[in-house]
C-alpha cells in the first residue's frame, strides 16, 4: 500500500486537490451534455457595431465578437439586481481570458477580473442572441467553478459627452429603494423626488459621468419625459462596472430635447442645448477633428472682458499638434470679426484672447459663433452667449 507521500507524489497534491482536478476534468468533458450550455459572444463597448441594439443580435457572424463556451444558469437564491431574477454565467474550468484587449481596457485600468465589464450575447430558448452585461463575480454560491453575475441590458441611454457629442450606450436599469412618495412638498412648492439606478460597463466614456449630469430616462412615450440627474457614482464596487444612482429632476424645454418623427420618439437628450449650442454627432473614426475650449461659462460680455480660447486637434482620441488655420467670428450669418479685439500676448500658439468690442447692448442675448478653420474638412466651432453682464 503506497504511503501518503507516495500518493501525493503520484497525484501531485492532497485528496481534496485531486477531487477538484477530477471534478474540473468531468465538468470540462461533460460541458456540452448540460441543457444550459451555450456559446456566448464577448465584446466591449468599443468593439460593437450595434451599440443601440439589445436583442436579436447576429452575434455568430460578427467578427468583432469573441465566442466563449458558457453555461447559462438561473440563480434564484438571491437577487442581485433587486428587481429581476439574476442569472449566472459559468465558464469552463480554467478558462483563460480570450479577449485580447481586456487587460488594456479593464484589467490594468480598473483592476477588474475577466470577464466583468464585458457584454455577452447569449442565445435564448429560441436561439436569439440577447445582450447581457457581466456585472460581478458570483463565487459566493458556487466556489467550485468560476461563475459570474449577469444582467440583461434593457435600456439604451442617450447622453451628451464631455466633448458635447451625442452618445448612446446599452445599460441595465435597476430600481432603487426609495422611501418617499416620489414627490416632495414644502409649504410653497411641490417637486419630483424619485430615484433610479443603472449599471453600465466602466470605460473611458462612462468613467466621465459626473455629479448633476442630467439624463432623460424614460420609455419613448409622447408625454412629458422623465429627467434625472446623477446623484451617486460608484466606480469601484465591483471593479469594471459603473453603478450610477439618479435623483429625479425637472424637464427644461429650453435645454432638453426629444426628437419626434411621425409621432414616434427617435432620441432623447438632456442638456442638448447649452448656450444655444447643439451637440455634434459622435463619429468614431481616425479622422482629424478640432475642438475649441474656454474656461468658465459659455458667455462673453458685450463691451468688455476678455475670454481665452484654445483650439486642440485630435485624431481618434489622441491629441495631435496644432494645424494652421484662421479664427472666424459670426453672429448668425453676419461676419463680426471687425468687432473682435484680439490678444495673444503670453499665450500658447493655439490660444487667443478675444473681446467683443462693441457698446451696443442690442448684441446682448445673441449668439457669437466662433470658428477655427483649417480647411473645409477640418474646422471647429463653438457658440458663446453674448451677455450684457
Amino acid at each position: 500500500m503506497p504511503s501518503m507521500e507516495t500518493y501525493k507524489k503520484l497525484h501531485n497534491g492532497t485528496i481534496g486537490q485531486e477531487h477538484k482536478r477530477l471534478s474540473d476534468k468531468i465538468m470540462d468533458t461533460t460541458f456540452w451534455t448540460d441543457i444550459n450550455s451555450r456559446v456566448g459572444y464577448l465584446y466591449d463597448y468599443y468593439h460593437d457595431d450595434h451599440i443601440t441594439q439589445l436583442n436579436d443580435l447576429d452575434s455568430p457572424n460578427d467578427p468583432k465578437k469573441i465566442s466563449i463556451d458558457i453555461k447559462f444558469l438561473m440563480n434564484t437564491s438571491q437577487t442581485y439586481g433587486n428587481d429581476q431574477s439574476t442569472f449566472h454565467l459559468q465558464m469552463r474550468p480554467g478558462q483563460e481570458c480570450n479577449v485580447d484587449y481586456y487587460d488594456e481596457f479593464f484589467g490594468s485600468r480598473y483592476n477588474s477580473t475577466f470577464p466583468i465589464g464585458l457584454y455577452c450575447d447569449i442565445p435564448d430558448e429560441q436561439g436569439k442572441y440577447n445582450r447581457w452585461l457581466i456585472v460581478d463575480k458570483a463565487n459566493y454560491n458556487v466556489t467550485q467553478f468560476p461563475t459570474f453575475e449577469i444582467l440583461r441590458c434593457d435600456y439604451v441611454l442617450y447622453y451628451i459627452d464631455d466633448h458635447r457629442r451625442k452618445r448612446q450606450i446599452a445599460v441595465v436599469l435597476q430600481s432603487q429603494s426609495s422611501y418617499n412618495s416620489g414627490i416632495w412638498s414644502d409649504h410653497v412648492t411641490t417637486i419630483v423626488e424619485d430615484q433610479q439606478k443603472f449599471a453600465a460597463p466602466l470605460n473611458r466614456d462612462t468613467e466621465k459621468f459626473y455629479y448633476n449630469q442630467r439624463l432623460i430616462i424614460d420609455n419613448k412615450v409622447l408625454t412629458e419625459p422623465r429627467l434625472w440627474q446623477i446623484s451617486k457614482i460608484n466606480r469601484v464596487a465591483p471593479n469594471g462596472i459603473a453603478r450610477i444612482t439618479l435623483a429625479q429632476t425637472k424637464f427644461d424645454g429650453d435645454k432638453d430635447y426629444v426628437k419626434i418623427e411621425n409621432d414616434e420618439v427617435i432620441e432623447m437628450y438632456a442638456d442638448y442645448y447649452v448656450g444655444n449650442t447643439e451637440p455634434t454627432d459622435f463619429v468614431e473614426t481616425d479622422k482629424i477633428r478640432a475642438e475649441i475650449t474656454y474656461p468658465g461659462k459659455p458667455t462673453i460680455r458685450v463691451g468688455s472682458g476678455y475670454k481665452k480660447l484654445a483650439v486642440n486637434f485630435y485624431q481618434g482620441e489622441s491629441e495631435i499638434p496644432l494645424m494652421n488655420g484662421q479664427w472666424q467670428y459670426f453672429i448668425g450669418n453676419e461676419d463680426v470679426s471687425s468687432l473682435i479685439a484680439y490678444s495673444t500676448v503670453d499665450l500658447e500658439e493655439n490660444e487667443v484672447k478675444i473681446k467683443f468690442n462693441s457698446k451696443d447692448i442690442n448684441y446682448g442675448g445673441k449668439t457669437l459663433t466662433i470658428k477655427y478653420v483649417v480647411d473645409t474638412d477640418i474646422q471647429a466651432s463653438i457658440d458663446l452667449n453674448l451677455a450684457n453682464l
Partner: protein
Amino acid sequence: MTWTDEDKQRLLHFKEIVDSDDIKCKEIIKKLLLSNKYILHVLNNTELEKEDAEPEDYYLENVLPYYVITETLSDVKHFVCFEISYRDLQRYDKTKKLLQIVFYILINEHDAIELDTGIARHDLIAALIQDQFNFTNYFGVKIELVEDTAGAVDRDYILRTLTFQQIVDNNLIKDGKYGNKEVHILA
C-alpha cells in the same frame, strides 16, 4: 407675444435707474469684486488659474449674486455670495432707509488656510472685502461695516458674514418709461 430690442432695452434699463437698489448695487459690487485680483487669487480656483482665466470667468463660478448653491460640490471650491436687503427705515425719518449689503464668504474647510500668509481664508477674504468697501461711497453714500459674524453652514463649509449698511433715500422717486422720473411724496 413679440419681443423687441426695445423690450430688451427696457429690462437693461434697470441696471442704471435708481428704483431698484438691488440691481444697481449688485452691478457695482460685481464689478468691484471682479476687479480685485487679491480676492480672486485667495478664492483659489486652481482650474481657472490653470486656464489663465479672465476675472469675469469667476462670476457665477466663485462669485455669486445670490446666497444659494444647489450644485453638488464634488471638488473643493470657495464662494463669495452677496445680497442686498433692507427692512428698517431710519428712525423718525421715512424718507431714509437702512440699506444692507451682505457678503457671505463660504470656504471649504479642506482648504481653509491661505498658504502664502497662513491666514484663515475666510478671514483674509473678509479683510479684503472690508478693505475694498468699508467707508467708501461707491454706491453714492458712505457705507459702513455694521456686523461681522462667523460660523459654519455644515461640516464642510466655514461661513463669514459681513454686513455693510448705508442710509439712502427711501422710494423718493419712481422711474417712468425710460428715465421719466417722478418724485414720490411719502404720505
